[in-house]
């Protein structure tokens, strides 16, 4: 697959949480395990305790969300949403996440493969007590498989593989 050389992004925030519904915890660095997930996160395969864990999905080991989408939700709907509120693990800037489905890309020293777009869920409106479901449609981030693990830190570059 042709590599698109025109983008270079950066990790702006990292979050994990132990179980469904619990607040996301901001991290300076997270540990990715190839084929499994993020150490301490609810969707780590084998110890899954996420909202969707009754439905195993190997392509949901790590999730990403564009910080630009938060800017747009504020612009289009006047709704403030912070990086710990979208409930994805990695907040990015400068990465066209929706273009990456089916492609591989580098997250710091790690290698990911995007499996599908994330879909918002109504239950986030109950958690946040804000009508964010519609605003998140088509810009709700990306689900990925971890091909090569390692440590990811805030400030790490994100680029095509």
């Amino acid at each position, binding site marked *: 697959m042709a590599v698109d050389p025109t983008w270079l992004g950066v990790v702006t925030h990292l979050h994990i949480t*132990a*179980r469904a519904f619990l*607040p996301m915890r901001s991290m300076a660095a997270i540990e990715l395990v190839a084929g499994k997930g993020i150490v301490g996160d609810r969707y780590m395969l084998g110890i899954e305790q996420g909202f969707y864990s009754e439905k195993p999905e190997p392509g949901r080991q790590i999730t990403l969300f564009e910080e630009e989408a938060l800017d747009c939700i504020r612009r289009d709907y006047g709704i403030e949403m912070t990086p710990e509120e979208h409930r994805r693990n990695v907040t990015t800037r400068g990465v066209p996440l929706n273009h990456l489905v089916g492609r591989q890309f580098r997250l710091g020293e790690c290698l990911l493969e995007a499996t599908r777009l994330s879909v918002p869920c109504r239950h986030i409106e*109950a958690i946040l007590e804000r009508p964010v479901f519609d605003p998140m449609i088509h810009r709700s981030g990306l689900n990925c498989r971890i091909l090569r693990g390692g440590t990811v830190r805030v400030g790490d570059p994100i680029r095509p593989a």
Partner: protein
Amino acid sequence: MRHIHTVIRAADAAGAGIRRLVLMDPDGWPLPKFRPGAHVDLHLPGGLVRSYSLCGDPAQQDRYTIAVKREAAGRGGSAFLHDQAAPGDAIGVSLPRCTFPLAPDAVEHVFIAGGIGVTPFLSMMAALERSGGRYRLHLLHRGALPLPDMLAAHVAGGRVILHDTAAAPRPELAALLGSPAPGRHAYCCGPAGMIAAFEAATAGWPAGAAHVEHFVPPPLPPDPSAQPFTLVLAKSGREAALPAGANLLAALRGLGIEVESSCEGGICGACRVRWLEGPPLHRDRVLQPQEREREVMVCVAGCAGPRLVLDL
């Protein structure tokens, strides 16, 4: 996981017939925030779901504290929490919901509580102490105080006034409430008779200045076109009468039918079901017009006619 997974970390007696439980994440992770006056649903064995006000300080983010009064004539929820629930046991808890919030524009809050009805005011008072808000609580109780240790500082500070109805005649609520005034809000949580008396006493108050706590879930957004209809499952021949605005996915689950679902908002496509007779009222945003002629997303759909027959 459909609920917050908590573990009972402490349980103690906290007044006449009252058991207090402290629920925490198994690893002590912070729990979802709650607003003063909020409650949670506890999911108990046998499908029992019971609502309890959170009576701890909302600033303490690692625990939900509830106080359960034993209801001798109840349906088993309080008996279970008194007699069987023990520290270390797991309990599924809903997200906190606040149907009894502090009025944000109030300059003074007057609370009326009956017995165990004091619980939502305990979280409110903790928040008001921190923010410097003005309040007064009149607690009507019969004999022993509910949650005496949580009330002690407020009583000593003069902001909780106790009315022991075993020792003195029941006070008139109108006298306790005083007159309506700009910025003064009145609140009541207690037995049904007390709520009725409170509503009578505040009938002349400005609209929106008197608040009562009912333990009912927040209503769904009303659909003016919704009508009751009969749900029919063609393969099993089962039927169910559904009230106007009923959620079809929940109704199917209630009939023991396993239906895939994910977003439960009509966009992900997980709960697609074939329909045979209807027509359904489609409220999804995933099916094409030609697909809608045969299929329906049951998480959001209703029915335009008296019968909805699904190919299940």
